[in-house]
C-alpha cells in the first residue's frame, strides 16, 4: 500500500474569541493519495478554509488544532518544529488563494517573486531558478514568459496573475497543492481556462491536490474524490461519481436540489431551498448537525453523535447519516410547488439605440499637444431590447461588458449619451435621479449584489425600510410607517422583530430579503436585480430566487436581471441579452439563446459554465487570451480577438450585421446563416438510465415567448430532441 500524501485523522480545530473557544472543525478525517485531486465543498462557515489552514499549520494567533493527527507523507505535522514546517511550506505543500492580487507582492516584479522559491528551498542559483520559472510559466500556458517575468503584478490581468500564482506554487514541485477557491475572482471564460490548467496538474506533475470550492460544478470538473462539509464536519465522502449520482446524505441531496441544473425551471421545476439556517458554531445541535433541517430526523437516533459510516456495498463511499440505508434515495428528491407560467403584459421598458460613453481626460502636456486630451470609453453601444410587464429579461456578460452601466442609467445615477430608454413611453435616459418626479423614482428600483453593503450598518432595518416608505409617499406618520414596515417584512417572509435589528445581526440571505423589500416598497414597475444571488450560498440562493419569482407574480413587475451566471439566468429569465464589450451579441428567448444557433461568444460562455451534473456532456471551447479592456476595444467585431470561429479579415475590419434568425432571436456575427444554423448544442445530456437525471433534463419550458406565439407551445419531445443527445451524435472536438 502506498503512503498517502496527506492523512487527517479525527482533526478538531478551534478558534479563540471573546466568548471563549469556538470549535470550527471537529471529527474531520480525510486521506489524499499520491496524484489524487480531492474536492472539499460546502457553504460559507462550514470550515473548509480552516481545514486548509490547519494542513499548512498556519492558524494564526487565535486558532489551534486541538485534537487528532495531520500526517504529511507519514509524519505528524503537529509534532514538527517551526523550522521543519517552514521547510515544508512552499516547497512540499503549496497553496493558491482566491485573490491573486493579494497573493502577489505588488512592489516586486514576477521574476523576483518566482525565483526566490527554488532559491530558498533548494539553494540553486538565480540563473537556474529563472530557467525553471520560464519552464513553469510556459507550463501554465502564459504566453511570452519573458515579458511576464519583467512585469509587476498590476500589469497582468486577473487570469494571468492567478496563472503566475499557480506557477509559483508548482515551482518547487510540491507533493500537495491546496487551492482555496482559486477561480472565484475570475470571469467565467477566464475561469474555464484556469480550470483546464488545474485539471492537468495532477497528470503532468503528479501533484496531489485539495480543491476547496463552494461550486459543485467546478469540483466535478477538477476532482476525483469529493468531501462535502457541513457545519464543521464532513457529512459525505466518496468518488465524484458516488457523491454526485448516489448521494447518501440528506444535506448533499438538498444542496443538489437548490442549484439550478439544466432542466430546472422556476415554474415547472422550481429549486428547493434547504429550510432553516446554518447553525452558528455555538448553537450546533448535539448529534447530527443537519438534524434541524432534515426531513428524516428521528429523535433518539439522530441526536446522538454520529460517526462517518461506510456505505455498504459501495467501497470508498462514506456518509454521516445513521439512516442512509433506510431512505429511499431514488424517490427522495425534494420537489417544489409547480406554478403556472406568468403571462407577460404590454411592453414596459423599451431601449432604442442606447449609448453610454464615458469621457476620459488626459491632462498631460503631451496629450494636449497631440490633441488627444479626451477619449471616450464606449461602455454601451447601440443597445436595443424591450421588456414586458411581469417579464424577466436577463443581461448576461463578463466584467466590463456594460451591463451595470445600463442599470446605472436606468436608475438615474448616470445619464445616457444617446438613444432612448423608454419606461412606459417616457424617456428616462437623460433624466438624472434629481430631475425625476417621485412617482418615477419609486417606480424604478434596484436590488444590489452585495448583501453586506446593501444595508447601512448604522441604522436599524426598520428605520431603513421606513425611510423608503416615507420617501415614496407610501405611508405617513410613525404608526402607519411601522404597520407598513411590518407588512413588507411579512412580504419578504422575515419575522417582524427584524425591524429592530441592525444589519450585522442578519445573515446574507436575510439582508438580501431586506434589500428586496426596500426595492419593492414603492410598488416599482421595473426592478433591476444586479446579481442579487451571486454572493449568497447556494441553499439561500434558491430561496431568494423563489422569493423574487413570487413577488414578481404578485406585483407583475418587470425585472431586468443582470448576471454573469448563465445557470441562474437560464432558471430565472424569460429572455436574455448576451453582452460583450458594450454590445449585445445575441438576444432571444431563453430557449433560443441556450440552443443553437449560437453567437460564438454565447457558445463559449455556455461551455465555460461549470455544471454540477455528471450526465451533462459539454462541448469544450476554451477561449484564448483575456478580456480586452473597454478602453481599447478591438476593431471590427469586439469578439474577434478571442473568437474560435473567426472567419478572416472581415471580422477585424467590419462590425458584423445583426441577423434575425428566428422571430426575436438576433445574433451579431459575420458567420453565414447556414454555418450558424449548423452548430451543435453545447450542453447535452449523455446518459438516460438514472431516472432522476432524466426528469431533471425536462426541456427548458419557458414563460410564453412574447414575439413568437407560434413557438409558444413547444412540445416537450421536440425540445428534448435538441437538448438530449446521445454521446454518439455529439462528438467531442
Amino acid at each position: 500500500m502506498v503512503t498517502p500524501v496527506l492523512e487527517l485523522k479525527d482533526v478538531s480545530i478551534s478558534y479563540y474569541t471573546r466568548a471563549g473557544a469556538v470549535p470550527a472543525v471537529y471529527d474531520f478525517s480525510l486521506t489524499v493519495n499520491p496524484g489524487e485531486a480531492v474536492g472539499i465543498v460546502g457553504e460559507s462557515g462550514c470550515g473548509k478554509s480552516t481545514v486548509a489552514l490547519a494542513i499548512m499549520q498556519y492558524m494564526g494567533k487565535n486558532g489551534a488544532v486541538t485534537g487528532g493527527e495531520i500526517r504529511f507523507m507519514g509524519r505528524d505535522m503537529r509534532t514538527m518544529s517551526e523550522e521543519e514546517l517552514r521547510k515544508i511550506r512552499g516547497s512540499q505543500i503549496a497553496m493558491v488563494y482566491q485573490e491573486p492580487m493579494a497573493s502577489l507582492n505588488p512592489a516586486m516584479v514576477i521574476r523576483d517573486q518566482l525565483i526566490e522559491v527554488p532559491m530558498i528551498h533548494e539553494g540553486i542559483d538565480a540563473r537556474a531558478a529563472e530557467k525553471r520559472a520560464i519552464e513553469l510559466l510556459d507550463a501554465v500556458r502564459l504566453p511570452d514568459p519573458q515579458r511576464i517575468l519583467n512585469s509587476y503584478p498590476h500589469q497582468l490581468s486577473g487570469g494571468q496573475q492567478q496563472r503566475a500564482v499557480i506557477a509559483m506554487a508548482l515551482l518547487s514541485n510540491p507533493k500537495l497543492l491546496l487551492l482555496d477557491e482559486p477561480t472565484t475572482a475570475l470571469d467565467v471564460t477566464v475561469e474555464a481556462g484556469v480550470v483546464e490548467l488545474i485539471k492537468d496538474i495532477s497528470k503532468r506533475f503528479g501533484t496531489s491536490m485539495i480543491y476547496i470550492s463552494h461550486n459543485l460544478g467546478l469540483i466535478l470538473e477538477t476532482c476525483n474524490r469529493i468531501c462535502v462539509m457541513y457545519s464543521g464536519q464532513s457529512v459525505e465522502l466518496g468518488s465524484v461519481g458516488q457523491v454526485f449520482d448516489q448521494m447518501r446524505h440528506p444535506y448533499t441531496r438538498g444542496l443538489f436540489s437548490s442549484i439550478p441544473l439544466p432542466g430546472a425551471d422556476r415554474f415547472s421545476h422550481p429549486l428547493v431551498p434547504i429550510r432553516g439556517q446554518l447553525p452558528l458554531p455555538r448553537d450546533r445541535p448535539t448529534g447530527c448537525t443537519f438534524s434541524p433541517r432534515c426531513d428524516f430526523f428521528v429523535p433518539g437516533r439522530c441526536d446522538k453523535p454520529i460517526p462517518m459510516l461506510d456505505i455498504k456495498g459501495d467501497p470508498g463511499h462514506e456518509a454521516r447519516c445513521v439512516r442512509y440505508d433506510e431512505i429511499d434515495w431514488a424517490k427522495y428528491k425534494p420537489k417544489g410547488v409547480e406554478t403556472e407560467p406568468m403571462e407577460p403584459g404590454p411592453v414596459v421598458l423599451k431601449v432604442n439605440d442606447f449609448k453610454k460613453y464615458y469621457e476620459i481626460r488626459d491632462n498631460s502636456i503631451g496629450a494636449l499637444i497631440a490633441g488627444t486630451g479626451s477619449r471616450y470609453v464606449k461602455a454601451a453601444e447601440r443597445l436595443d431590447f424591450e421588456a414586458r410587464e411581469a417579464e424577466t429579461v436577463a443581461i448576461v456578460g463578463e466584467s466590463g461588458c456594460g451591463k451595470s452601466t445600463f442599470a446605472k442609467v436606468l436608475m438615474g445615477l448616470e445619464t445616457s449619451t444617446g438613444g432612448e430608454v423608454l419606461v412606459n413611453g417616457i424617456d428616462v435616459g437623460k433624466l438624472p435621479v434629481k430631475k425625476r418626479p417621485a412617482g418615477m423614482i419609486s417606480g424604478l428600483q434596484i436590488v444590489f449584489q452585495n448583501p453586506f453593503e446593501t444595508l447601512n450598518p448604522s441604522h436599524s432595518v426598520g428605520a431603513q425600510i421606513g425611510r423608503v416608505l416615507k420617501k415614496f409617499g407610501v405611508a405617513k406618520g410613525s404608526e402607519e410607517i411601522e404597520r407598513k414596515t411590518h407588512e413588507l417584512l411579512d412580504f419578504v417572509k422575515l419575522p417582524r422583530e427584524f425591524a429592530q435589528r441592525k444589519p450585522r445581526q442578519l445573515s446574507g440571505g436575510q439582508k438580501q430579503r431586506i434589500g428586496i423589500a426596500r426595492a419593492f416598497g414603492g410598488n416599482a414597475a421595473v426592478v433591476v436585480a444586479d446579481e442579487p444571488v451571486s454572493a449568497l450560498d447556494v441553499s439561500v440562493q434558491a430561496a431568494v430566487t423563489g422569493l423574487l419569482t413570487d413577488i414578481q407574480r404578485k406585483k407583475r413587475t418587470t425585472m431586468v436581471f443582470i448576471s454573469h451566471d448563465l445557470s441562474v439566468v437560464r432558471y430565472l429569465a424569460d429572455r436574455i441579452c448576451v453582452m460583450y464589450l458594450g454590445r449585445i451579441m445575441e438576444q432571444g428567448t431563453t430557449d433560443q439563446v441556450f440552443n443553437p444557433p449560437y453567437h460564438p461568444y454565447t457558445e463559449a460562455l455556455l461551455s465555460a459554465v461549470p455544471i454540477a451534473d455528471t450526465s451533462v456532456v459539454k462541448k469544450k471551447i476554451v477561449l484564448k487570451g483575456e478580456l480586452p479592456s473597454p478602453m481599447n476595444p478591438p476593431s471590427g467585431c469586439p469578439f474577434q480577438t478571442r473568437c474560435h470561429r473567426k472567419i478572416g479579415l472581415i471580422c477585424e475590419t467590419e462590425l458584423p450585421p445583426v441577423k434575425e434568425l428566428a422571430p426575436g432571436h438576433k445574433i451579431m456575427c459575420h458567420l453565414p446563416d447556414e454555418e450558424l444554423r449548423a452548430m451543435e448544442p453545447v450542453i447535452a445530456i449523455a446518459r438516460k438510465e438514472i431516472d432522476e437525471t432524466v426528469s431533471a433534463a425536462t426541456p427548458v419550458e419557458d414563460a410564453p415567448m412574447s414575439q413568437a406565439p407560434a413557438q409558444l407551445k413547444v412540445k416537450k419531445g421536440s425540445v428534448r430532441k435538441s437538448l438530449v443527445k446521445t454521446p454518439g451524435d455529439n462528438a467531442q472536438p
Partner: protein
Amino acid sequence: MTDIAAPSAAPVHRPSRLSKLVKSIGLLRESPIGMLGAFLVLFWVCAAIFADVLPLRDPLAQSAPDLLRPALSPAPDGGTFWLGTDDKGRDILSRLFFGSRLVLFWASFATFVAYSVGMLMGVAAGYRGGWWDEILSFIGNVFLAFPQMVLYIVILTQLRPDSPAGELLAAAGFTTVWIKGLTIVLAIMLGTAPQVMRIVRGLVLDLKSRDYIAAAEVRGESPFYIMIVELLPNARGPLIVDACLRLGYVTIAIAALGFLGLGLPPPDPDWGKMISEVRGYGAAAGNAMIWPALAISTLVLGLNLLADGLREISLRD
C-alpha cells in the same frame, strides 16, 4: 422557505440607548491600558464636577505670608496646603481642581467645534468631490501650512479683547473670559479642523462607494441627507478614537497658550498659566511648577491611553 421564522405580531422589546451605552463601556474592561486611561480621565472629570462640594480652600484667596510653600504646609487658619502654595500664597490643590473645570470645558468645547467644522468640510469634500473637494482641500491646506503655534499666536494677538473685534464682542455683552475663550476656540478650530477634514474625507471616499449609498441616491435622497444620515454615522468608529487623541492635543495647546500668556485672563486658575506665573522664581518655584505640569500630563496621558484602548477594542471581534 429558508432562513426565516414565522412572522409574528408580538410586541417587540427595544433595548434602551442607555443600556447599550453601558454595555459598550463595559467592553473597555478588556483593555487594561484603556481602563487606566479611562481612570485618569474620570479622575479629572470628577475633580471638575465636585470642586465646589469638596472641602477645598478658596482657589483665589491669597495668603501674604505663605508664598511658594512646599506640599503639606500648615495654613494660617489651621488647615493644610496639601500641595503647597504659589507665588501669591494661593492653595495649589484647589487651584488645580477648579482649573480642571476651565481646562476640560474649553478643551472639549474647542475640540467639539473643530470636529463639527472638520466633519462637515470632510464629508462635503469626500462625497461631492470635484470643485467642492478642490476648494475645501485648498482652504484646509492653507491653514495646515502654518506652524500651528504661530497660527494660534497670530490669531490670539490680533483678536485681543481690546482689539476692534474684541470691543465689538464686549459691546454685545460678552465678558472678557468669554471673549478670550472664544478666540482660543476659534484659533484651535482653524488649526485642527483641516486635520479632521482630511481624516473624514478619506473615510468618506471609501464609504461612498458602498451600495447603501447608491440605494439612497436611487431613492432620490438629497446630498445633505446622504452626508449626515447615511455617511457620517458609519465613519464614527475611527473618529471617536481620533477625537479622544485630539482632545489631548487641544489640552496641551490650551496649556501652552496659557503658559505664553495668551490664555484665559487672570485670576482664573489655568494650568498652563499656573506654571508660567511662577517660572521666574527659579528653583524656589519647583513645587509650584511640578503639580500643574503633572496635572496636564496625567490628563493628556489618560486621553491617549483611552484612545489606544478604544482602538484596541474596535480592532478585535
